[in-house]
């Protein structure tokens, strides 16, 4: 209450404080600009692709086959079918193995093994996709011919570390207290993992899977070698070499026909939309798994 106390504990800002406040504002401004720039980049990409590709989007685009040489119209129905098959088969290969690897690493492996295999996965993650493409080409295609499932195999190699690492991270987030609670009931380790740990981490596992699928859907390099000599019919047979959307974009752009260029943009739009939807979906799964783990 006294004047001395008021002066001693003054609430008015000092010069140093005013300087700090200025610096604060400056940093905030810089941060905001950087964030806006990042948003702008994505916005530009989306806008550019949408603008150029939207024109060619119609029902035919999704249902028709590509036009024979010189003709107009048509669509990329075969590419869509092919992409679906290739990605589905790749997911069927990569997802179970990736999840099991993660379970092994997190629940059962000794710390040293965990570190070594983790390193292997990280290296695998960084392998250029074209190297993987050549590898699969050399291993499976030379002398045997191309096939969609072989492309799936290549994509699965790309997806595996993504699924495994994401699953491992979310398994590690499951509190030990839950495992202890189950073990203390006289339940075995394996049943505990399957019945308590994995269900709790399910949201995070879906997140990892979704992101892996998004990545695989857009990979082009392996498809170049392994599934490029294709029919222009719609086929769902994985033993055949099937057309895929990324490859279609590539081929359309190489064509002299300007209409094909438009189709390339449209195909890019389809692919981008697919990846965007998957990314949003993965975020939703993440939020769900956070809710489950939150106390």
């Amino acid at each position, binding site marked *: 209450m006294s004047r001395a106390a008021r002066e001693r504990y003054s609430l008015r800002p000092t010069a140093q404080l005013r300087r700090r406040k200025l610096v604060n504002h400056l940093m905030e401004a810089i941060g905001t600009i950087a964030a806006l720039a990042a948003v702008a980049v994505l916005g530009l990409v989306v806008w550019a692709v949408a603008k150029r590709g939207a024109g060619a989007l119609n029902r035919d685009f999704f249902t028709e086959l590509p036009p024979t040489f010189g003709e107009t119209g048509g669509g990329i129905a075969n590419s869509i079918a092919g992409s679906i098959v290739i990605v589905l088969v790749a997911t069927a290969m990569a997802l179970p193995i990736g999840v099991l690897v993660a379970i092994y690493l997190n629940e059962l492996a000794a710390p040293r093994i965990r570190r070594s295999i983790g390193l292997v996965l990280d290296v695998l993650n960084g392998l250029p996709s074209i190297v993987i493409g050549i590898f699969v080409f050399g291993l499976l295609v030379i002398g045997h011919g191309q096939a969609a499932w072989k492309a799936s195999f290549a994509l699965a190699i790309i997806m595996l570390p993504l699924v495994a690492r994401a699953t491992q991270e979310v398994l590690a987030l499951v509190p030990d207290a839950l495992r*202890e*609670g*189950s073990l*203390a*009931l*006289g*339940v075995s380790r394996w049943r505990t993992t399957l*019945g308590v740990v994995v269900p709790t981490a399910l949201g995070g596992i879906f997140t990892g899977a979704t992101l892996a699928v998004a990545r695989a859907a857009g990979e082009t390099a392996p498809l170049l070698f392994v599934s490029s000599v294709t029919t222009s019919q719609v086929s769902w047979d994985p033993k055949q070499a099937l057309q895929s959307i990324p490859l279609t974009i590539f081929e359309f752009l190489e064509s002299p026909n300007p209409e094909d260029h438009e189709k390339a943009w449209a195909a890019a739009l389809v692919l981008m939309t697919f990846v965007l939807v998957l990314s949003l979906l993965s975020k939703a799964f993440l939020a769900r798994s956070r809710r*489950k783990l939150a106390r």
Partner: protein
Amino acid sequence: MAPTTDTIVPVAPIEVAQREQSRPAAQREVVFDVRDLSVFYGKSPAVKGVNLEIYRTMVTALIGPSGCGKSTFIRCLNRMNDLIAGARVDGKVLYHGQDLYGQGVDPVSVRRWIGMVFQKPNPFPKSIYDNVAWGPRVLGMRKGLDDRVQRALEQAALWDEVKNRLKRSALALSGGQQQRLCIARALAVEPDVVLLDEPASALDPIATSAIEDLIHDLKRDYTIVIVTHNMQQAARVADMTAFFSLDVHEDGSRNGILVEYDETQKIFTQPTDSRTEGYVTGRFG
């Protein structure tokens, strides 16, 4: 004017007849016979040379300052220490005469009969029903699951509060309710012994009181061992009390030891060891 004759006839103090639970030592059935038990984490001993017997359908409390091995000791009774890398157990723990750490003994079946409830409630992120039914389902007790779940929840004094929302998530319950749910979960597999590691320390006083009343009911059917840092709780709830303390050596190393183990009424009215007296009177922690 005071009376001149001797008015009080000398009478020897009569042994007080307590509730039916307290019986002379010779009549108690031994569930755990612990002989010279020591636990090491790596090289350093956490607790050394523990000798005691746990009796059937009684509540045995382990009290003492923090860090003197109470939790370490109780986790030996259901081999939960196996889960800690580098943990080693010396000495013997006989459970109904069987060596708990003997060759060929599967820790999973040990925990089937000796359940545990932890300090912080840890319900599974499943529904209330599934939390309680999980253990029995996995262990093959599928018949009459609904009845089993209800019985367990009734024993844990939680049934009335949750009977209309069994399918809701267990995480929506309050702290005290979650802990009672964890108790129900442990009871659902019909164990022989229930170990409680500071079950009420994360709860408010009213929830604590509910747990204490619950323990009083449970000891009719189960053997209960409880670790508590709240000695008044031990005084209220336990039939037998074991006091652990720290043994500090000249080289500075320290480990937990069992100082005194006796009937609770003795520990809190006339402890034998001065360290026990110092601890329960609050003069020395």
